């Protein structure tokens, strides 16, 4: 078993926190995990990409080869389109529909969503709205993990454990909000 995930977004959107949640859930199930991150210059509002690999075998490369990824999980719709060349024939794109506009030539949102809908398998998530409904717009990363969870060979309890591990220190309210955010994401693709 091997799952390769490209995590995308804009520097500052917390792409690494997506990777951390999924990585923790996978480690809890005894899987091998490799997660390549971006630090430094690109984190200043630039396009950010993280390669996350889960497997029951030892993983050789920290980078995912082109044409083989199982999933693009993106915090931003334009960014989700940037890495399509990595996708395998059976892969899915799960992306937030909320644009992050910090460039002058950002295409119209509808055009991006239309391109996404033309893909064989795309799940579009209103992450910001769902996060706000869950109690905190900052929980949108957890919403996105929830939305992708069906596509990952990991148990629901492992995600719950990962959320607890990640947010417990921030207090009961933060924990509850993130459980609600995960649930909201989960229901998008249920």
């Amino acid at each position, binding site marked *: 078993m091997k799952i390769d995930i490209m995590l995308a977004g804009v520097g500052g959107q917390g792409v690494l926190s997506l990777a951390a949640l999924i990585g923790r859930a996978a480690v809890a199930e005894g899987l091998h995990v490799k997660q390549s991150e971006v630090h430094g210059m690109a984190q200043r509002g630039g396009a950010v990409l993280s390669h996350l690999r889960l497997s029951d075998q030892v993983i*050789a490369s920290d980078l995912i080869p082109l044409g083989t990824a199982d999933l693009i999980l993106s915090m931003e719709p334009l960014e989700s389109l940037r890495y399509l060349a990595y996708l395998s024939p059976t892969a899915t794109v799960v992306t937030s529909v909320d644009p992050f506009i910090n460039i002058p030539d950002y295409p119209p949102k509808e055009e991006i969503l239309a391109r996404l809908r033309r893909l064989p398998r795309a799940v579009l998530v209103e992450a910001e709205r769902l996060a706000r409904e869950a109690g905190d717009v900052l929980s949108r990363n957890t919403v996105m993990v929830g939305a992708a969870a069906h596509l990952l060979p990991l148990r629901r309890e492992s995600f719950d454990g990962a959320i607890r591990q990640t947010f417990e220190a921030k207090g009961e309210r933060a924990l509850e909000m993130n459980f609600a955010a995960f649930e909201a994401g989960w229901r998008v693709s249920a």
Partner: protein
Amino acid sequence: MPRRILLGDECVALGAVHAGVSSAYAYPGTPATEILEYLLEFRRRHGRPFAAWCANEKTAMEEALGACFVGRRALVSMKHVGLNVAADPFVNAALVGTHGGLVVAVADDPGMHSSQNEQDSRFYADFARVLCLEPATQQEAYDMTAAAFDLSERFAVPVMLRLVTRLAHSRTAIEVAAEPRPENPVRKALRPQSWILLPSHARRQWHDLLGRQQEMVAWSEDCRWNRLTLNPDDRELGVITTGLARNYFEENARELASRPSHLHIGAYPLPLALIRRLAGQVKRLLVFEEGYPLVERLLRGLLDTPLPILGKLTGEVPLEGELTPDNVRPALGLPARPLTNPGDLALPTRPPQLCQGCSHGHMYHALKQALAGQAQSTVTADIGCYTLGALPPYDAIESCVCMGASVGMAKGASEAGFRPAVAVIGDSTFLHSGLTPLLDAVHEDADMTLIILDNETTAMTGGQESIAPSARLKDIVLGLGVDPGHLHVVEVLPRRVPQIAELLRGEFAHPGLSVVIAVRECLETARRRRKLVEVKPS
């Protein structure tokens, strides 16, 4: 054995702790920053080892050397270009015969994700005649760091640990030692003259170092990180990999009809006998290395070899940028993987940029207003977030070469006859390498204006504290001898932009040295500080 999920950088830090390191020094630089960050946090929690940020990589190396001078184990970490700054103490540290282990962790950045060049630090290790270990996995990063301290003491040389971005910034679970080794006791060298590199001593030390080379090669021949796997059934191709290249080779190897004989090199000096054994078995050699073609060049030499050697120099492997699981395929005779969706080339790019509301942006507006109307002008700049002022909408700077270069370059341009010459530098970069060129400028009263963007932090690498607090910057500049009449401290607020422009215009007209310190805390650092304050009371 306990398991931990760690970043490659953190594996180095924990490896050092478990090897009994007493002191760790560094200057922040991507992709090496997280080594010392981990150790600082470790120190906060456990009280040991000593760990601190330094003014620059050279001072860091010298402070580490001081710890080794009294018999302790020390770690110094930096990004690849930092080793240029620290090259003087590094190369000479190879001569002194250190008895406390010194490990120099250097993180290279092939592909230049966050750097000005992609120089390969292994050349420095070769140049200084010391051992170099190159991990291919996080586990190796941990194991090699621990081993590097032992090797440093055994061979009485600093040991380089060469990392690259993709390892430094990749996270995975590793097994760690249950019990850390105790720290070395404080003990001065038995032969202190070895540390006094007077020519007569230095000649003896150099002779000794050269004498130890054979032992180092002998160690390299059968160390566990240099592994030769021969395939007697396939005599066509032999593959040599170094560092991360092994992972990309392995990622593709199962698609090969037959597995070639393979030598992986994780430790230098090169294991000559292993290379000869491989070469004796095959008709062609293919070399994959992350970085410059160091091994390939050494193998090839100047004259043609009877055995064809393929790699970066012959074009089979890309000479520029980092290796990937994809770009090593052609050399292995594998076709490109089929792409279901080639992607959309028409997407707008999203380059990094200054945060919304960052004071650097306001300062660049002021600078451009002040320069408007000048027949000619030049703005040299430096390394940090403010380098992004090179991009639209600012287009405000014309150079970024190395730490501190802005100051000396503005002076040189002005003295060559080009004025007004303006230098822009951040507070942390100024303290790293801007003080000495400013001293030069004071000495000549150079006709230039230096703008120090003081955001009270090292912002680009994640907001480490600058080595001197903002409040002292003015005194430091005055102490260097800058004329108080032409030293100004301004607070950068959007509404003050016209006033600041006016002030700058006045100083451009002054036919001598002026310094303007533009103060405003980095927004990111301020946000993190507020968070800390919020968390503390609970």
